């Protein structure tokens, strides 16, 4: 059971020291990414202002983050459920709650995401397809050996091969983001500072 993360560092161990203020960011691509993040909720202002410390690297990552968060064919709701589950697995507060504007507009709530983190197998609000996606995303990082050929056969009853690769890639990138935002102690409200 994964409880909603509550972070132990207040505003976070690195939030004050390592994130640039918006006014100090002059790179046009980073400013564009911040504007898109304000409109969509992703990948988050705090994260982009952290990456802005290394603008050359950040410019390479922004298209990838845009693609995994807003591209592809999987729904915003499904990605939000997976994002929240993975955040809960590593105790990350930054990505645990409702974040994607499209998903929120489609009815994703804090309560639904709490179910994704702590009891998705039994929650009637989730479809079989969503439960399977959550199980897949969870097992990759809990015990990847359990994601065997039989697991992929089951996935193909609900997803195309392209969707499975999209889901696996999304989960991989998102898990990595949750690890570093958890390590830094970032909070959702840090986006507003």
């Amino acid at each position, binding site marked *: 059971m994964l409880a909603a993360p509550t972070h132990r560092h207040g505003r976070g161990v690195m939030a004050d*020291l390592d994130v640039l203020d918006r006014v100090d960011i002059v790179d046009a691509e980073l400013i564009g990414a911040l504007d898109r993040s304000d409109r969509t909720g992703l990948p988050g202002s705090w994260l982009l202002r952290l*990456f802005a410390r290394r603008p050359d690297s950040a410019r390479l990552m922004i298209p990838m983050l845009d693609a995994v968060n807003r591209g592809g064919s999987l729904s915003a709701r499904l990605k939000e459920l997976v994002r929240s589950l993975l955040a809960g697995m590593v105790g990350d507060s930054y990505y645990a709650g409702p974040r994607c504007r499209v998903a929120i507009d489609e009815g994703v709530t804090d309560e639904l995401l709490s179910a994704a983190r702590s009891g998705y197998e039994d929650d009637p609000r989730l479809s079989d397809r969503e439960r399977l996606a959550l199980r897949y995303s969870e097992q990759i990082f809990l015990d990847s050996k359990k994601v065997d050929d039989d697991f992929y056969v089951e996935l193909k009853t609900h997803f195309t091969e392209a969707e499975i690769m999209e889901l696996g890639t999304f989960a991989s990138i998102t898990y*990595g983001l949750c690890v570093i935002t958890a390590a830094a102690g970032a909070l959702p409200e840090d986006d507003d500072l």
Partner: protein
Amino acid sequence: MRAASCKQQGLTEDALNEAIEDFEHSSRLDERDRAVLRFIGLLQDPQEIQPRDLDALRSSCSREEIVELLMVIFMNVGMHQFFATIDFYPMLDPDGNSISQAQSREIYGVKAEA
């Protein structure tokens, strides 16, 4: 070892293996290497990382280097576990030559399972 630039700088498979297996006692690594590897070890449970852990990293790395390290971590920490589930292997052999997945599995799969 994957990056050609690392080979050119003298990094060897032996040094990499030491870094993975016993980095605290490896004479091939310096204190800065060890500080980074200690921090990465803490990411097994990232929510338990404390300000003192980052202070330790700051003693060896600048703020910009720490951000760069976080970028490397987020790109790699999840992706390799996903790759493991789909039997995806490196597309280059240890000498940097392009190889098929079957060839790569022979080289890296056996090593990974050993």
